[in-house]
């Protein structure tokens, strides 16, 4: 079967056909990802990376590398016009911390890029990269947040190791703890984890016939085009980024990865350049999730009402800030979980260390804290002798309740329904057998969707009917495999009464598609989905008078469906979309529309920690039944139920897919995944064989239940579902392990060895 053979008519079996084009191409093996793109004369790029975590660079000798046949460029910091990937302008008035594209006078983490090579073959590029000689002088560094915060610790950046400190306070905390009849206190620690998407970082850059530097890359954010332009000191309009459909993102492709290196090499060599990172260099050096150390103090009355929460979060930002301010902010705002309190105080700090920079990863600060706040509830329940489910139900927030920022929740809260659903679905634990203890546990969460409202988020979209009635959509969304593009087609088509095989969507082109903002923060359905809905409705409104005129009825007596518009109740009296489009054009009602959806705007004062943060939340509850081998500590998950109130499911199968996939990542986070960095800052887990993501045998049948109870702020009342399900697995599993064995788990991942050790700890 030749790769050139066209796809025939897609399958129309089952309830979900016709299918979005990208999914058809994926199962056909026809979709062209970032590395499936070849241009004549294309060079291959490779990055030279530091092998030390903290050192001054004395010299870089590229002469041997340049001597390898086929090498066309070996570039260092001096070759970069504006050597700045990010300055972390968070609007907080913080001193800028420069993250260079290529290290100049010092390296700050194991694997930091130092030079970059382009050659005629991938092999020559690798050979040359290995021959770049860097003279380092090691200097003392800090590799844990404890060390970084100690007096006299070496500083990662001139202004000190404490980078940002958020402080939220609502109510009288001292009084709340005075009112408390029971106080539970614990410290929880989470680890570095990697996104481990299956498609490595990849892309191709070239200069087109108009002198525009074009990058076609696997990225969640095409708006980085501006940063790339500035790095090369080019006008913004001279750089164009095309986002290929990604083989996974999860936040790991939210900051730039290959883009700066591709851009620099293409610009300098004037030839197309391809770059694909190896899995090993990705595991070593590409940004990870922030480890959090979380100290929680929770006070409650004897009958289980939470009075006070006092929380301190320290996040390991690694060597450069990237999105640390935002991650620690999300952690702070969500630290109290979906529970009421009389008063709360949250401190959330990002700390630099000489380790791999940490940044965005599905859950983004708000998921680490779930492990902590849920276990606090379980500890409280046990201390009070109250059932953990009942304790939660006693304290769940409702619409109108205040958060630690002082703002109120302004949509309906479905967490209690979710928990009830999960409890009923799981029922009682299966009996334990010899040597294996079975337990059940629950975890609840609230996870924001949409960017913080003080960012004044926007998304634009364009839609137009062709003369034959097919629909063209242009939207700058990037698609990381969760149906970002397909959802827009679906929303547009359903609004216009069309089937999705009639639509073509062009996405992710910073010059040719209206910008929608990147795919992160569970914002895409909310933002571009609303934009698509808005545009489709506006287009429909423009065309209604034309259709009404053609059919000889009022605009209010039209039915749109089946790729036609008919008079209400008279399916035989209809016009096709093509007839409508041509008629509109003849009347100079051009059948296309561009519009922008602007999210709600709010204000937040960082100095007081008061104001509005996220637009809304998705609530959920998970339940897990586990079997723990008493002798080895190994955990087998027997049953797992995950329930979220999604407001409105635009495509139920895809919603379930998001829930199931996020649960899988959450299980890996909970039980097995850890990027290992030793006490000298060296990464020791650079093989994929050693980075333990769950296989099919590590997971049970995951039962995903999406409830549609309280409408959210997404299109048609949808709530975002990409991130929310990743938080509850860790606490649900911890609770189940506790229920099975009595062990309290405070550190992730909960490896068999740690579980065994916790089982043997004397009960406090």
């Amino acid at each position, binding site marked *: 079967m030749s790769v050139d053979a066209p796809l025939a008519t897609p399958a129309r079996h089952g309830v979900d056909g016709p299918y979005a084009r990208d999914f058809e191409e994926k199962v056909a093996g026809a979709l062209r990802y970032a590395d499936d793109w070849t241009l004549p004369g294309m060079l291959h790029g490779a990055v030279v990376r530091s092998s030390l975590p903290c050192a001054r660079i004395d010299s870089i000798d590229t002469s041997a590398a340049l001597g390898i046949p086929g090498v066309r460029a070996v570039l260092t910091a001096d070759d970069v016009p504006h050597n700045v990937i990010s300055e972390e302008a968070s609007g907080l008035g913080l001193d800028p911390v420069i993250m260079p594209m290529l290290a100049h006078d010092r390296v700050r983490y194991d694997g930091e890029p130092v030079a970059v090579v382009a050659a005629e073959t991938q092999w020559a590029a690798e050979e040359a990269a290995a021959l770049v000689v860097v003279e380092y002088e090691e200097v003392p560094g800090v590799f844990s947040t404890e060390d970084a915060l100690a007096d006299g610790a070496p500083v990662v950046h001139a202004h000190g190791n404490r980078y940002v400190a958020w402080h939220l306070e609502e109510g009288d905390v001292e009084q709340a703890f005075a009112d408390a009849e029971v106080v539970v206190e614990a410290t929880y620690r989470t680890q570095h984890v990697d996104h481990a998407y299956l498609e490595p970082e990849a892309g191709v850059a070239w200069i087109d016939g108009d002198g525009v530097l074009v990058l076609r890359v696997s990225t969640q954010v095409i708006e980085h085009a501006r940063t790339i332009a500035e790095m090369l000191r080019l006008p913004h309009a001279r750089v164009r980024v095309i986002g290929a459909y990604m083989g996974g993102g999860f936040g790991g492709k939210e900051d730039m990865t290959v883009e700066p290196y591709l851009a620099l090499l293409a610009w300098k060599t004037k030839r197309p350049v391809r770059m694909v990172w190896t899995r090993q260099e990705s595991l070593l050096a590409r940004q990870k999730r922030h480890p959090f150390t979380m100290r929680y103090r929770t006070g409650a009355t004897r009958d289980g009402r939470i009075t006070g929460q006092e929380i301190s979060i320290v996040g390991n930002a690694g060597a450069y800030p990237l999105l640390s301010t935002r991650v620690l902010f999300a952690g702070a705002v969500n630290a109290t979980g979906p529970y009421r309190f009389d008063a709360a105080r949250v401190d959330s700090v990002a700390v630099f260390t000489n380790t791999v920079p940490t940044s965005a990863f599905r859950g983004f600060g708000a998921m680490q804290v779930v492990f902590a706040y849920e276990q606090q509830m379980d500890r409280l329940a046990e201390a009070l002798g109250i059932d953990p489910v009942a304790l939660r139900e006693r304290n769940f927030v409702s619409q109108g309740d205040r958060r630690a920022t002082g703002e109120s929740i302004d949509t309906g809260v479905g967490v209690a329904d979710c928990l009830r659903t999960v409890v009923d679905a799981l029922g009682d634990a299966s009996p334990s057998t010899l040597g294996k203890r079975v337990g059940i546990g629950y975890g609840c969460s609230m996870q924001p969707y949409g960017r913080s409202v003080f960012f004044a988020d926007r998304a634009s979209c364009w839609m137009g009917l062709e003369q034959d009635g097919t629909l063209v959509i242009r939207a700058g969304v990037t698609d990381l495999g969760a149906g970002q593009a397909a959802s827009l087609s679906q929303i547009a088509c359903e609004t216009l009464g069309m089937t999705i095989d009639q639509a073509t969507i062009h996405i992710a082109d910073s010059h040719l598609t209206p910008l929608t903002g990147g795919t992160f923060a569970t914002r895409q359905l909310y933002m571009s989905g609303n934009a698509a809905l808005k545009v489709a409705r506006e287009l429909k409104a423009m065309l209604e008078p034309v259709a009404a005129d053609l059919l000889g009825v009022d605009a209010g007596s039209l039915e749109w469906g089946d790729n036609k518009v008919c008079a209400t109740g008279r399916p035989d009296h209809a016009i096709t979309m093509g007839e409508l489009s041509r008629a509109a054009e003849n009347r100079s009602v051009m059948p296309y529309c561009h519009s922008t959806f602007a999210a709600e705007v709010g204000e937040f004062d960082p100095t007081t920690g008061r104001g509005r943060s996220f637009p809304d939340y998705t609530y959920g509850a998970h339940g897990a039944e586990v079997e723990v081998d008493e002798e080895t500590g190994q955990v087998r998950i027997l049953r797992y139920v995950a329930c979220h109130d999604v407001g409105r499911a635009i495509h139920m199968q895809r919603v379930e897919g998001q829930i199931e996939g996020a649960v899988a990542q959450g299980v890996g986070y909970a039980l097995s995944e850890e990027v290992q960095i030793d006490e000298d800052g060296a990464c020791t887990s650079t093989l994929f064989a050693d980075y333990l993501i769950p296989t099919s045998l*590590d997971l049970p049948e995951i039962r995903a239940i999406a409830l549609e109870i309280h409408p959210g702020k997404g299109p048609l009342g949808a709530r975002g579902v990409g991130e929310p399900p990743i938080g509850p697995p860790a606490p649900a599993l911890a609770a189940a392990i506790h229920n099975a064995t009595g062990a309290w788990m405070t550190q992730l991942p909960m490896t068999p060895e740690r579980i065994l050790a916790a089982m043997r700890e004397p009960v406090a």
Partner: protein
Amino acid sequence: MYASPFEYARASSWQEAVGLIAEEGEDARAIAGGQSLAPMMMLKMAEPAFLVDIRDVAPRTIERDNGMLRLSALARHADLEASPDVAAAFPALGEAAGMIGNVRVRHRGTIGGSLAHSDPSAELPCVAVAAGASVTTLGPSGERSVPAAELFVSHFTTSLDHGELITRVDVPALQHGQGSAFAELIRRPGDFASVMVCAVVRLGADGRCADARVVVGSTADRPLDVTAAAESLRGAELRTEAVAAAARAVADTTEIGSSTHGSEAYRREMVAVLTRRALLKAAARARGEGAHE
């Protein structure tokens, strides 16, 4: 990452392969499935200048010949896993083979290759020693037989000469009253084992242990025959208490090196757990109980 360039030739017989390697010298190596050698080459941990491909030098036969299981060195892990002869003659071998890596590795990797590679974390060296297997080799000086117990010297080091290739593996078939079992502790399906144990027991007519062999793998630089530590089993009824005591003794004396898979204390404890489980299972099978697990 690319392996360093090498020259390549496909051999059509064992003799030809041995001859080619002898001719090309110290930097020549044989490759069959390549599931161990190829990744090492791609990580630049091995840089042979000449590869002799032996994949097709002989058929991948598995034969039962009275009391002996005779395996071509080219028998793949998938072949061992699926073979009814292996399941009948020495079940622990097929079970262990089924735990190697993933389905793709098992369709390329060979028993000869695995034994010659001498990775202390590999399943087959451990089972080979426990089974009392022996390998037939062909080298520049001719053919000889080497007991598995004398084969594994250290990490990636066997007692074979350079250019001496394993051509056959002979495994004594279990007799009536014998039972075998293999157990490993893995962090994730397909992973290299943190700890592994292979146990073979023979029960006398009185139902007591007449003979036992226990081999621990993955904890040191080679499989460790720790049978001596389980000496207390001789003449004992192989039920839980006696076996547990022997397992503790085994664990106490086993060499445990450092590993990223867990602390020494934990892995030592797991040696005891796995030894106990493997012995009990082997004993149950020796009695004819629970033939299929």
